[in-house]
């Protein structure tokens, strides 16, 4: 078993103690296009932080950089004070940085129960076990059952994922992330495609997670964002436009301009 700490440099400063996730001058270029433009973002311990911005603002790219799906062109990423800029994606997960995907990424031939039991086994370090059957450990099954209940998946727990209705698949997408026991949870439009009445409840479920889970949420629906977040960062053209409380953001003329469709002018400011 590889210790996750051996491959990272420890860079702890007093300023980063309550900051669980931080990017410093993070830059990503695809050829001549700058998708992420020197982003400095700090996610505080226990935060319910939202990341908003028009389509193509680079929100998902930013998450891909943080989780290591894409390599950054320049800049640094810190997780709980440790630099993680260059470590492999799966090791970032083992350090507590977990994400969900805008487009469902599920294990289609497994059932939700098998999926969660597998993820929990993996998270508990049993992922390499061969002498036990999946589900032989009661605590693994108990946790899987808790998550199935939390996300209303009990009724379909034994159904093959590929055959589940979209709404349930969306819930499983989130349950998988929670099964990883995240310290920092990155949610990429988690309620996209979920029926209007159920969105609030789903976000409330997430919001009610213990405060030792810090959350960064990408979401388009402004009402949902203002209910959920204590801090909002606005991303435009890959760069941070502004950051503040929901009230500050709601009254910010620049943000209004972007969301009222005058973004073109702003880009040239």
């Amino acid at each position, binding site marked *: 078993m590889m210790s996750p700490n051996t491959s990272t440099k420890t860079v702890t400063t007093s300023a980063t103690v309550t900051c669980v996730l931080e990017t410093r001058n993070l830059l990503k270029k695809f050829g001549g296009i700058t998708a992420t433009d020197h982003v400095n973002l700090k996610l505080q311990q226990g935060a319910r932080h939202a990341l908003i911005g028009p389509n193509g603002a680079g929100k998902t790219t930013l998450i891909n950089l943080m*989780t290591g*799906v894409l390599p950054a062109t320049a800049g640094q990423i810190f997780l709980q004070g440790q630099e993680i800029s260059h470590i*492999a*994606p*799966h*090791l970032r*997960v*083992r350090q507590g940085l*977990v*994400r969900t*995907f805008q487009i469902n*990424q*599920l*294990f*289609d*031939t*497994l059932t939700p*129960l*098998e*999926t969660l*039991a*597998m*993820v929990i*086994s*993996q*998270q508990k370090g*049993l*992922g*390499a*076990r*061969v*002498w*036990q*059957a*999946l*589900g*032989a450990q*009661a605590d693994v*099954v*108990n946790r*899987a*059952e*808790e998550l*199935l*209940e939390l996300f209303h998946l*009990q009724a379909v*727990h*034994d159904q093959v994922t590929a055959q589940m209705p979209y709404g349930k698949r969306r819930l499983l997408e989130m349950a*998988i992330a929670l*099964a*990883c026991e995240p310290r920092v949870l990155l949610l990429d439009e988690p309620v996209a495609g979920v029926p209007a009445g159920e969105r609030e409840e789903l976000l409330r479920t997430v919001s009610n997670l213990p405060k030792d889970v810090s959350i960064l949420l990408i979401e388009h629906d402004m009402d949902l964002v203002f209910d959920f977040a204590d801090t909002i960062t606005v991303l435009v053209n890959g760069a941070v436009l502004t950051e503040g409380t929901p009230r500050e953001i709601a009254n910010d003329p620049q943000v209004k301009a972007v969301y009222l469709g005058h973004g073109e002018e702003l880009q040239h400011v």
Partner: protein
Amino acid sequence: MRAHKASMQMQKQLLKASQWTWQEVLLWALVFATPWIFPGHALIVNEVAIVALFALSLDLVLGYAGVVSLGHAAFLGFGAYTAALFAKHIMPDPFAGLLVGMSASTLLGAVFSLTILRGTDLTRLMVTLGLALILLELANKLDWLTGGSDGLQGVLMGPVLGRFEFDLMGQTAASYSLAVLFILFIAVRHWVHSPLGATVKAIRDNRLRASAIGINVNAKIALVYTVAAALAGAAGALMAQTTGFASLDIFALDRSADVMLMLVIGGVGWLYGGLLGAVGFKLMHDVISSITPQYWTFWIGLFLVVLVLVGRDKLLKPWKWWA
């Protein structure tokens, strides 16, 4: 209390997959009886048991890990030549030779696994094919060791467990191969139902997400590939030991292609797929080639086209055609 009850129920459901059913027990009892029920066909039973093990090996790679290979015969051949050389020059004991053959293929699998981690399915097909061809040519060129194109002859095996001599009818050979197949099958069965097996299926289903839940995808694929190489090496060792011979055609593309056909016939990602596919393929081979020796590939080709276009489920259940 209610939640506790629910999770007990779920634990039962999860464990059900790993429990033996009576159909399985019956099937294996029948399998072990075949060399005695059909004493005249023990040699064919032996052959089928060996290719079934080979197919089980490819199923781990293709069916469970989702990695394509057109050169799986590399491990079969390497195990066969190693076991034959070991028997000829060092020790004639079958089980010792089997372990040596398996170990050699395991090492080869670990090294070759590095070549299949990158690229696409097409590159993997080419790389695996290429490696098998390289081994074929090496076995051909190193004739002082391998006998070259004449094959490695004069492999005399000792008795199994020091007691059971290999007989001309092939009953010892068949029982020996079936026993090895069974033991390795149990190991694989255990393996695919473990948490490790589940992570491998997860990688097959979705590599991006597998990595996003903390699975080291490349390490797991390399591990599966290496384990599969060990199984193929065991099949090769059995082949050399029970025929007393190892020849170049064991590395040939036909071998790698045939075993893939067997999996297609029996079904991939299913433990019994390789076994049933091997039986089906061998039976078809024998029946069709006894009717029309030259044109049997025509019929197997036709069968494959129909199988793939119509689907296995529909083909096996004709009563569903009009349902």
